[in-house]
C-alpha cells in the first residue's frame, strides 16, 4: 500500500546549469525507519534533503509525501537569530511554553544560557539550541543535515538517544553525517 510510507522518492535527478549532480535516486521510508544519506563533500546530500523538503525543485522525478505529513528540518544553517537570546529564539517558534523545555535545557547543559544572546554561545552550543528547537517540535518526519557537527561526545549520545526514541515512537528520520552515529539506519550513498 502506498499510504504506509511516510515519504517516497522516485527517480530524482538534479542538474545545476546543465551539469548533473545526481540521477536516479529512489527510496521509500516507513514510520520508524531511518535513512542515512552518505557521500563525499559536494556530492549533493544537502541539495537532496532540500529537494525532499520541497524547498528546491528537482530537475526530474517526484517526491511523494504522506498526506498531512508534519516534518521538521535543520540544515547547515541553524536558523537562529544571533542577536536574540536563546529564550527569544525558542519563543520565535512559539515553543517557550513547551513543558519539555526545562528538562531538555538541563540535559543539553544550556539552562544557564537561556538569557545569553546566541552570538555569545560557543559553536557547539549554538548547534544544540538549534537541535533543541527541533526536539520541541513534534514532527512525523525529521530531516537533519549533519546534525552531529561540532557536538561533544556527550551531546552526540544525547542526540542519538533522542532520535532513537523518536523512531520508536513512529517518526521517520533522514539525515546526513560524515562521522559514524550509532543510529540503526538504511544507508544510501551519493557519489
Amino acid at each position: 500500500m502506498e499510504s504506509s510510507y511516510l515519504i517516497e522518492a522516485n527517480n530524482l535527478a538534479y542538474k545545476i546549469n546543465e551539469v548533473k549532480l545526481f540521477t536516479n535516486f529512489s527510496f521509500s521510508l516507513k514510520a520508524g525507519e531511518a535513512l542515512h544519506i552518505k557521500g563525499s563533500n559536494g556530492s549533493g546530500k544537502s541539495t537532496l534533503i532540500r529537494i525532499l523538503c520541497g524547498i528546491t525543485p528537482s530537475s526530474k522525478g517526484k517526491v511523494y509525501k504522506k498526506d498531512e505529513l508534519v516534518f521538521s528540518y535543520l540544515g547547515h544553517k541553524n536558523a537562529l537569530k544571533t542577536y536574540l537570546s536563546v529564550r527569544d529564539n525558542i519563543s520565535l517558534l512559539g515553543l517557550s511554553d513547551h513543558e519539555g523545555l526545562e528538562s531538555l535545557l538541563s540535559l543539553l547543559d544550556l539552562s544557564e544560557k537561556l538569557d545569553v544572546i546566541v552570538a555569545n554561545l560557543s559553536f557547539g552550543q549554538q548547534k544544540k539550541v538549534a537541535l533543541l528547537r527541533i526536539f520541541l517540535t513534534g514532527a512525523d518526519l525529521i530531516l537533519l543535515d549533519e546534525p552531529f557537527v561540532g557536538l561533544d561526545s556527550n551531546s552526540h549520545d544525547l542526540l542519538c538517544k533522542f532520535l532513537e526514541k523518536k523512531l520508536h515512537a513512529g517518526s521517520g528520520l533522514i539525515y546526513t553525517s560524515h562521522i559514524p552515529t550509532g543510529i540503526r539506519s538504511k544507508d544510501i550513498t551519493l557519489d
Partner: protein
Amino acid sequence: MNILLLLKNEALKLVKKTRAWLGPILIFILIMVAFPLTIELTSNNLSDAFYPVLFISILLVMMLATEGIFLEDYEDGTLELFLISKKSLSQWVFLKIFMHWLLIGVPISLLGAFFNLGANNDLSSSLMIFPALLIATYIFLILFCFGNSLSLTKGSALGTLITLPLTLPILVILGKLNTAIIFNINYFEFLILIFGVLSIIIFAFPAIISRIIKTHLE
C-alpha cells in the same frame, strides 16, 4: 493566534535589532536637523526647500529601513523553515511590511508632520501632510520590499536600480500634493489618488513578493 505570533516575532526582531529599527528614524531626524544648516538663509528659502527634502528623505529612509529586509531570514535559514511550515508566505510578507510601517513608517510620518510645524509654523498644513506621509511611507516600504526581494542575494544596488522607476510616480504625486497643500486646492484628490495606489498594492505585492522569494530559495 498564528498571526499574532508572527506579528510578535517581527516586532521582536525589529526592535532588538536597533540597526534596523532606530537607525532609519535617527537618520531621518539627522537629515531634518542638518538640512537647515546647509542653507545660509532667510527662512523663506528654508520652507521652499523643506518639502523636497522631506519627501526625498522619507524615500531614502524607507529604502534604508527595508535594506536586507529578507536577506537576514534568507541567509540564516529562517525562510526555508518558514516555507516548510506550510504557513502562508505572502501573509508573512504582508505582516513583515506592516510591522515595519508601524515601527518606522508611523514614527517618521509623525516626525515629518512635526518638522513641518517647525519649518512652516502652520498647524493645518501639518495635519494635511500627516496622512499623506502615512500612506506614502507604506507605499515606499512595499515598493522597496519588492525591489529587495528581486535582488535578494545580489545586493541592494540592484534592488534600488529596480525600484527607482516605480517610486518616482509617487514622488511626483507627493510634489503635486505639496502644491495642493500650499495653495489649498485639490488636496483630497491627490490624497485619494495615493490611497488608491496603496489599496491596490497593499495585498497584491505581498503575493508577488512571496512568489519571488520562493523562486530565490529554489
